[in-house]
């Protein structure tokens, strides 16, 4: 028997080795005083490619982009103090959308913690409410347990962010390591309750007007194909949350697209009539349900979720199944009877024909819907579509023909402007063979505009389609609709020359406004490789319709 090799390593070297052993090959971050030992160790790694973000929030959203595109935990690094606080928005965003993320922060040396030392902030305390779990590391030995555990926690059950805060003296502490832990992997999933599954199957078999309601959990558990098969077998018209778009191709006969605040009229009207709602990996978010008491008022509810705290949180389920969506659907599908459901499906088809999503200008690439559709016509389903947050996000959610899980990267729960560009960069780094398009707005793009230079430096295949309406469009829209047209603080007086901005950061850029044939220019731009800005002006007065007023019932839609 060979004696295990004992190595003398610093905490920083241990961190880098554990990341390598974990399979991390790309991570994003920004160095600073309190994390320099880890950066020094990282400089010796032949396996890990470090992407230098220009703002820590950008780095964390790049890590999110990697995680959202692949399903594997993304990793970001930041220094103490402002480095850590700059991460917070992206960590909170990962929490609300259940994205596996491991954020490693430097901290001042242990002896200086609590002294208001330079760049000291209570990272542990700040991240308690926005993480699944967090660690303040006490010694280099502990890293051997904590780092794999952080990855395990991020990936297990309902995924989410984990923070590891490492004081500088722990990074420099020298210890002997002879045995390395296994990489952290997701815990095995608990077996779902078969009695509950039998009850759910019976309810589906007996229902006259059932609806399948898919959420982001279907993407996370890799259950899209099973969900589609269940819908087809049982004849279930299917709605998707913003996070679930792509689970069922939008052009599938059973798809009713996105539900809720900006769903099609037919979608919300069908939900109003259903007698059974089968919620799968969805959490009854207020943007999806509208006024909860009026959401699916006639329906019994089956709720399947990996997180028991989601069951009965917003709406009481008649059957609540705590379990992984994939495992549950595997057991549920065989018990569900094949059902043509002609009467219900023909009624749904009638509502679809009478109240479709209206997308004026769809054939004109100089309109918002037309631009989105023109982009889609240049790409196939292999492309990744990221967005920022605002009107453009909702228009893309409505108009882009999403057909594949993990095709669609968007900030749903937290709704973070500035998400799009860095998330798109992260996705392109993780899946370099796929073209990545980021739809953004002139409000959102400025919130992480510095990452243009990161995109240029890395040469990532990201095209930013900037829909410029010289305003904070959704704010402008809500002020127009609900605040007596007092459009205050939502119109931009100063307007950057985005072409020059992009070029100044080292990107190619085209302005579709100036192209005689915008469709051809778009096709040429999207066919080229590398980062590029595609600018297009949009009419400020265009609205996202239909719209359910915040707090109103979904059947009370305005416009569309």
């Amino acid at each position, binding site marked *: 028997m060979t004696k295990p090799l004992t190595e003398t390593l610093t905490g920083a070297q241990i961190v880098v080795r554990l990341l390598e052993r974990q399979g991390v090959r790309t991570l994003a971050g920004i160095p600073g005083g309190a994390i320099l030992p880890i950066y020094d160790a990282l400089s010796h790694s032949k396996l890990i490619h470090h992407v230098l973000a220009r703002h820590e929030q950008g780095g964390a959203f790049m890590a999110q982009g990697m995680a959202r595109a692949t399903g594997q935990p993304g990793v970001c690094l930041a220094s103490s103090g402002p480095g850590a606080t700059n991460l917070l928005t992206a960590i909170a965003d990962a929490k609300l959308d259940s994205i596996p993320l491991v954020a490693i922060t430097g901290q001042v040396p242990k002896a200086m913690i609590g002294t208001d030392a330079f760049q000291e902030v209570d990272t*542990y*305390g700040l991240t*308690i409410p926005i993480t699944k*779990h967090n660690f303040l590391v006490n010694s280099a030995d502990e890293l051997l347990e904590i780092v794999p555990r952080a990855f395990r*926690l991020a990936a297990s059950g309902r995924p989410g962010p984990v923070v590891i805060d490492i004081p500088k003296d722990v990074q420099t502490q020298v210890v002997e390591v002879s045995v390395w832990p296994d990489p952290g992997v997701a815990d095995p999933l608990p077996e779902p309750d078969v009695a509950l599954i039998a009850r759910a199957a019976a309810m589906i078999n007996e229902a006259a007007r059932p609806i399948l309601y898919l959420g982001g959990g279907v993407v996370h558990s890799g259950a899209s194909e099973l969900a589609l098969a269940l819908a087809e077998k049982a004849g279930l018209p299917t709605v998707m949350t913003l996070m679930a778009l792509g689970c069922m191709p939008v052009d599938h006969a059973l798809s009713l697209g996105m539900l809720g605040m900006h769903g099609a009229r037919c979608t919300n009207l069908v939900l109003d009539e259903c007698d059974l709602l089968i919620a799968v990996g969805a959490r009854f978010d207020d943007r999806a349900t509208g006024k909860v008491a009026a959401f699916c008022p006639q329906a019994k509810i089956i709720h399947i979720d990996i997180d028991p*705290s989601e069951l009965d949180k917003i709406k009481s389920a008649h059957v609540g199944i705590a379990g992984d969506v994939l495992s549950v659907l595997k057991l549920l599908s065989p018990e569900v009877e094949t059902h043509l459901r002609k009467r219900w499906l023909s009624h749904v088809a009638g509502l679809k024909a009478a109240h479709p999503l209206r997308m004026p200008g769809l054939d004109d690439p100089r309109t918002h819907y037309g631009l989105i559709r023109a982009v889609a016509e240049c790409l196939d389903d292999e492309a990744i579509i990221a967005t920022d947050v605002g009107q453009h996000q909702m228009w893309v959610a409505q108009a882009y023909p999403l057909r594949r899980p993990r095709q669609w990267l968007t900030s749903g729960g937290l709704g973070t402007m500035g998400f799009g560009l860095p998330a798109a960069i992260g996705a392109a780094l993780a899946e370099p063979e796929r073209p990545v398009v980021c739809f953004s707005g002139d409000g959102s793009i400025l919130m992480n505009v510095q990452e243009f230079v990161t995109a240029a430096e890395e040469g990532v295949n990201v095209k930013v389609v900037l829909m410029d309406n010289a305003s904070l469009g959704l704010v402008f829209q809500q002020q127009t609709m609900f605040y007596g047209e007092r459009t205050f603080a939502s119109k931009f007086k100063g307007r950057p020359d985005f072409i020059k901005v992009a070029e100044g950061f080292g990107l190619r850029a085209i302005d579709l406004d100036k192209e005689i044939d915008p469709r051809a220019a778009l096709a040429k731009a999207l066919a080229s490789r590398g980062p590029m800005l595609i600018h297009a002006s949009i009419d400020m007065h265009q609205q996202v319709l239909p719209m359910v007023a915040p707090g109103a019932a979904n059947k009370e839609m305005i416009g569309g």
Partner: protein
Amino acid sequence: MNAIFPAENQALARAVLELDVDNQAGVMSHVVSLFSRRAYNVDGIVCLPVGNGQNSRIWLLVNEDLRLEQMIKQLEKLEVVQSVRRHRADHEVFTRLEAFFR
């Protein structure tokens, strides 16, 4: 974290929660922040190590609120919490402590 007044005790329905947790720095913050972010007052807290000191037990005195079931599920999700048990408000852990708050 108000002191317990017998009159108030009777006015509002209360519950006592018993949590088995890891004994390490920050555990109390994880537990309490779940309540504070929801503006859900915790009337009483008692915490001491148990056994060999690896674990602690936290006793919480809280109002019976429609959100209590959700709070228990949220507590169970915390990595530092091993188990949660719910008792009635007359559990002696707090009634016997009342002598110290007179």
